[in-house]
């Protein structure tokens, strides 16, 4: 595990923030002025397409990749090199290898997750798909190939399970993380199928589930039964990871090598179930979650219809409710795993998109929330880009 070198702190941003929004019916860009007070919504891009993720390449601040499909057509990736003004489709989108007998081969249903590569590897991108597959592009998203051995490895295929074992919208490979100190140090997570790490550039991966809990009655030693929803790596301390899991909120300090369920310190009435996990860009002790109702049949709405973020400022020892500005009642929405993010300004701006098509923001690290946009389609992802 790389750990001897300290990561460089992300530069404090002073420019304008744009939110890249993926929805069930297309993509949007919500752009702010430098004060983050005035926002302007773009026209829809690829209206009608299901956009799971829209990402800016932070290495050139011009390239954008969009993971898209439609109700009828197969999955693809669109690429822009002019900040979304024009788009070209990937020549070879992520696809599993053709097998001799078609019935046994897997088919990419949708591209779910996009991660730009390490800063010293321009043009390199990773993608995670549903069903679980890991792919890489070396040319800015134009051509994609399966990456590493995991897509076809019998052990990994067993841990991935079948589509029947996955989440209602299909099992997913997500949270592809790159150690800012070392491009060969990688993580990814699978819903379901656990968290995995490589220290050799993807030549080998190993599960990292020590300390994670599973649904009652299932063997926690079995990787198959683990369902990480969102894993994040601290930019200023890459040896610290946070995770929102199907079974709680966790933190891992790599020296300890064990996930600690910091969600046990959440209020009992709220619980520690949810999808997103957001980290402070400069403080490894500060993180946000957005709890949802994970009781009975998993309503996947804000507990009691009262949405709120929760923040910890001490690595999960204590959590503070942040609901000022949100509806006080009867708000039956929640936030998906890619739909909450932070910028790198001071104070940190937080942004989230709801399943009911609203975009909310806080310019003050979550202490006050304002609705920036309403009536969008169901929001799947929100990324804060410094343009």
């Amino acid at each position: 595990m790389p750990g001897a070198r300290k990561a460089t702190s992300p530069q404090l941003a002073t420019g304008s923030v744009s939110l890249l929004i993926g929805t069930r019916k297309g993509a949007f860009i919500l752009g702010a002025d430098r004060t983050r007070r005035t926002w302007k919504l773009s026209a829809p891009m690829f209206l009608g397409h299901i956009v799971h993720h829209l990402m800016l390449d932070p290495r050139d601040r011009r390239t954008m990749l969009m993971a898209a499909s439609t109700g009828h057509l197969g999955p693809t990736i669109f690429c822009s090199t002019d900040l979304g003004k024009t788009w070209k489709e990937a020549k070879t989108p992520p696809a599993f290898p053709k097998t001799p007998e078609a019935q046994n081969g897997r088919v990419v249903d949708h591209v779910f997750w996009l991660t730009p590569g390490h800063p010293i590897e321009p043009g390199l991108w990773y993608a995670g798909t549903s069903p679980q597959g890991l792919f890489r592009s070396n040319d800015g998203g134009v051509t994609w190939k399966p990456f590493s051995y995991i897509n076809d490895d019998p052990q990994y295929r067993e841990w991935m399970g079948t589509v029947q074992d996955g989440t209602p919208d299909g099992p997913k490979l997500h949270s592809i993380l790159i150690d800012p100190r070392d491009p060969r140090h990688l993580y990814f997570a699978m819903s379901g199928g656990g968290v995995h790490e490589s220290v050799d550039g993807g030549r080998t991966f190993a599960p990292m589930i020590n300390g994670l809990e599973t649904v009652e009655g299932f063997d926690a030693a079995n990787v198959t039964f683990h369902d990480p929803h969102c894993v994040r790596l601290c930019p200023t301390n890459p040896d610290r990871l946070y995770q929102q899991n199907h079974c709680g909120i966790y933190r891992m300090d790599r020296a300890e090598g064990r996930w600690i369920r910091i969600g046990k310190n959440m209020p009992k009435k709220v619980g520690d179930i949810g999808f997103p996990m957001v980290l402070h860009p400069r403080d490894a002790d500060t993180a946000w979650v957005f709890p949802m109702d994970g009781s009975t049949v998993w309503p996947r709405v804000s507990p009691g219809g009262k949405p709120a973020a929760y923040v910890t400022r001490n690595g999960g020892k204590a959590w503070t409710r942040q609901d000022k500005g949100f509806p006080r009642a009867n708000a039956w929405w929640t936030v998906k795993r890619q739909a909450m993010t932070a910028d790198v300004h001071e104070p940190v701006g937080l942004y989230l998109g709801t399943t009911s098509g609203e975009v909310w923001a806080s310019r003050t690290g979550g202490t006050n929330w304002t609705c920036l946009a309403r009536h969008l389609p169901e929001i799947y992802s929100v990324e804060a880009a410094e343009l």
Partner: protein
Amino acid sequence: MTVHIPGALRSYTKQKSEVAAEGQTLTEVVSALNCRYPGLRFRIITEQDTIRPHIRIFVNEEQVRDLSVALQPDDQIQIICALSGG
């Protein structure tokens, strides 16, 4: 032969609703279309060479599920997006 293109795929065919294509089989016709309109094939045919779940292909008004079906030069091919979604 003539291939009828659904609205969802006309961004590939420069908005043409009908295009001409040649081939001995449906596989060859779709490959020929993909050469002329890159990307079109993968939107309707999976990497395992199966027709995607919500896509239907008709040859002379008969639904075809096997891409190896033999074709005649005057066949009419329709690519249809099945009714689905919300």
